[in-house]
């Protein structure tokens, strides 16, 4: 009797493990509340086509169905994707991942990507993915309204926003340490900031990579590298996560952080002693990409999403609102209802095409500089 119990237990364990897996697939296969209208909106193009002039073009979009899997930098975009679901009937599943992780995953998957759309992340990763042949070309009419410098000339990637970089300064700390608030990139070299500046390793942070590449472009190679060698003396350490500078400054650990600035950051530091400084000698910036993965399961839905997003200004305004960023004005100058909160003149002149092509060389050189002071 007891023997059978034991055998039964083993069988039960097996059964549990399989049931667990199958119940899981059942769960995801079941339509969610958001997609109850899926069947009714079988012709998505008609609804959204009104916005674009050539509705005839848009209606050629194949019937969309199923699920679009998205890797994004944040889950905050869920409302935007809900709107897409509402209008097209395509269910959206969202997972947040950093762009470096996405790229590694793509390479490991060997041409069988487990997601359809890539939404957000430093443009250098998108350029690299294009070079590896991992992206799908997307062409649509409204693309002509997008500024050339923020999209790939062959349509492999587009920009959904622009990240700008500034300093976060913990003024309670600077006061305590008796140091001035820095106002420019050159100020950061002052001896008094030694060990008080945090930036992220440019390899993991698209934002800080933009800092390095933009300053090199602006100052020229020789002067630029000299600059980073001197700056290295003041850097406490290079964070291995993009959000490190922000976190370290807000938790009173370090006085100065080189960080992305958006309205989310503004909200975080509201009411604290932390100030945002836009360096007077120029703000580095980097576009955030959108792209479709080649060979993905629902490549059509993802391609249509890109078209849907950029063809309808309401969608873009919604995106700008979620992102709390106004850079979309630069990407699509014709858009109304989004105003730039800063003067474009203070943005650094950047040749984005160098971001991708120079990445390996720049990072290698930077690694050598960082290494010089490892374990000082």
């Amino acid at each position: 009797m007891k023997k059978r119990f034991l055998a039964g237990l083993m069988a039960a364990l097996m059964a549990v493990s399989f049931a667990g897996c199958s119940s899981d697939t059942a769960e995801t296969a079941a339509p969610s509340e958001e997609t109850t209208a899926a069947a009714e909106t079988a012709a998505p193009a008609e609804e959204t086509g009104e916005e674009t002039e050539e509705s005839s073009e848009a209606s050629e979009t194949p019937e969309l169905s199923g699920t679009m899997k998205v890797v994004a930098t944040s889950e905050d975009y869920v409302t935007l994707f809900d709107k897409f679901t509402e209008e097209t009937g395509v269910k959206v599943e969202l997972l947040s991942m950093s762009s470096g992780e996405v790229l590694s995953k793509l390479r490991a998957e060997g041409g069988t990507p487990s997601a359809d759309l890539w939404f957000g992340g430093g443009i250098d990763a998108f350029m690299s993915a294009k070079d590896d042949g991992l992206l799908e070309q997307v062409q649509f009419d409204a693309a002509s309204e997008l500024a050339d410098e923020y999209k790939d000339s062959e349509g492999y990637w587009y920009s959904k926003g622009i990240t700008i970089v500034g300093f976060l300064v913990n003024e309670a700390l600077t006061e305590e340490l008796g140091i001035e608030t820095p106002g420019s990139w050159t100020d950061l070299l002052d001896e008094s900031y030694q060990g008080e500046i945090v930036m992220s390793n440019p390899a993991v942070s698209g934002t800080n990579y933009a800092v390095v590449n933009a300053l090199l472009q602006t100052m020229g190679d020789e002067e630029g590298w000299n600059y980073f060698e001197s700056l290295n003396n003041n850097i406490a350490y290079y964070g291995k996560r993009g959000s490190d500078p922000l976190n370290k400054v807000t938790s009173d650990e370090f006085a100065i952080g080189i960080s992305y600035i958006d309205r989310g950051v503004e909200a975080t530091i509201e009411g604290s002693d932390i100030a945002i400084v836009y360096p007077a000698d120029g703000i580095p910036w980097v576009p955030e990409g959108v792209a479709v993965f080649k060979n993905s399961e629902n490549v059509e839905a993802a391609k249509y999403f890109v078209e849907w997003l950029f063809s309808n200004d309401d969608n873009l305004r919604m995106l700008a609102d979620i992102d709390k960023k106004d850079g979309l004005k630069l990407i699509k100058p014709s858009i109304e209802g989004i105003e730039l909160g800063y003067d474009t003149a203070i943005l650094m002149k950047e040749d984005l095409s160098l971001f991708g092509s120079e990445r390996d060389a720049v990072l290698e050189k930077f690694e050598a500089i960082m290494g010089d002071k490892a374990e000082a």
Partner: protein
Amino acid sequence: MKFGSSEKAKVIRGKVSSDTFFRVFSERADRIVCYGLLGLILLFILYPMVCIFIRSLMGEAGITFGHYAEVWGKYREYLFNSVAVGVSTAVLCTLISVCTALFIYTRNGKLKLFLLGVILVSMVAPPFVSSLAYIQLYGRRGWITYRLLGLSLNPYNAVGVVLMQSISFVPMNALFLLGLLARIDTSSLKAARDLGAGPSEVLRDIILPLLKPGIYVTLLLSFVRSLADFGTPVIIGGRFSTIASEIYLKIVGYSDLETASAMNMFLLVPSIAFFFLYRHLMEKTGMLSDSQRASSEPFSLGLSKCRLMGAAVAAAALLFFAVMILQYICIFASGFMKRRGHGYVFTMEYFEELMRYDLSTMTRSVIYALIVALVGTFFAILFAYFTEWRRLKGRSFFDCLVTIPYMIPGTCFGIGYILAFNHEPLKLTGTGIIVIANMIFKQLPTSTKLCTAAISQIPRAQEYAVRDLGGGRFSVLRDVILPGLRPAFFGSFSYNFSTAMTTAGAVIFLINPGKKLAVFKLFDAVYSGEYAVASLISMLIIVIVLVVEGLVYLLSLKGEKRNVS
């Protein structure tokens, strides 16, 4: 792979015939189960590792050892860093673990339950949030170091990494050592006392020698875990890097799978070397005495009378408990506090925000974790039974193989799974199975060590007794092994469940957008700087884990009672 010859199926003295039939049948089932288990281990551990190895040889123009040359040339220093941190962590962590375990062992009543509770809670260390709490308490502006003691210590260095790793590995180790302590025959301790041995002599001459195998296991697991841990050096290493944190950087920053794979292979060298040293030590020592499991009545050692040794043990343990309790108070408090100028005010804001979060992922996490805990423990018991009890040939190899997932950073084990299972006929990417399998095998090393240690404490004589009475293998398994494994079952279940609920490194690459786990909500909150919400999500995870573990514990108590009656 043959079984020991002494255990060839015996024809049993004429007993009930249906029993004989079942026995013959069970001998065959026995083989199937054994080979099935080993097959799964080969498929889910060896095969992904082979894929990683192949990847490390891939160059632009065919097979190359160039990545190895590059790693050796450029990152040799980090390898030494890893080993130095690993050794320091292993020693420090083992010291604290032994002290903590002894301290709990010598307490009674409610205090003991409370301390055990703290250990169980601290096994559920939510990623990132624990290290944030650590920095909040002991950082350059830490509540304790700066505000209380007026120190401004910089935790971003090797010392910080060692301290934090040691502290976070203690709960698991202490629980493991406690399991061994609980099985010490207290009558021999009493006898020693009656014969005039002082408490410190009992500790030094009886308890510690009996704990020796447990100490070796603790040293091994801590060393290997430290080597593979990338989270701690990434967060508080500052400018200090180890191989594991460089691997993380290679994957996340450069998407350079080839170099990362080669670094993994390097990482395996010290780990495997240490593993064989450990096996050698274990073979020399043997496990706890073959004594009959006899009296386990409470025995008051009177640690306070142990003078210097006792004081040291108590001090280390109390320090550890203080750190743990502070850490969790800090996490809890962060969920309800808001910065206002230089101070903090109480707020329910974040709690309300948590209530608005979509926590449906929590259900999936619990289901996955339950499957992982049950199947993982089941595999571990079988593995321990076949290798340790039945002395399966090649057990050294399999024991080493089973330990490998512990030796490499979780991210790489995850990448290995994608490489291995991204095409037919073994296409698992995008399914829940790959996530569950990854968790089971990633955690198998610890569960098997727990079960192996417990099984080796079971006196062989009990098997002979059952056999002499006509019992077959299943009777032995059921009446001798399983009851002896009950504490290990609970330990393994808790470990598997809580780790599955909080693990992220390995799973980040395997998870599918549609099948998120609760821990990703936590990540999302951390990444967007919402620490308060992150703290609350961790508290929620902790509560869920404790409730589930409590239920399992009650069930296992019930089982024990039934067994006795």
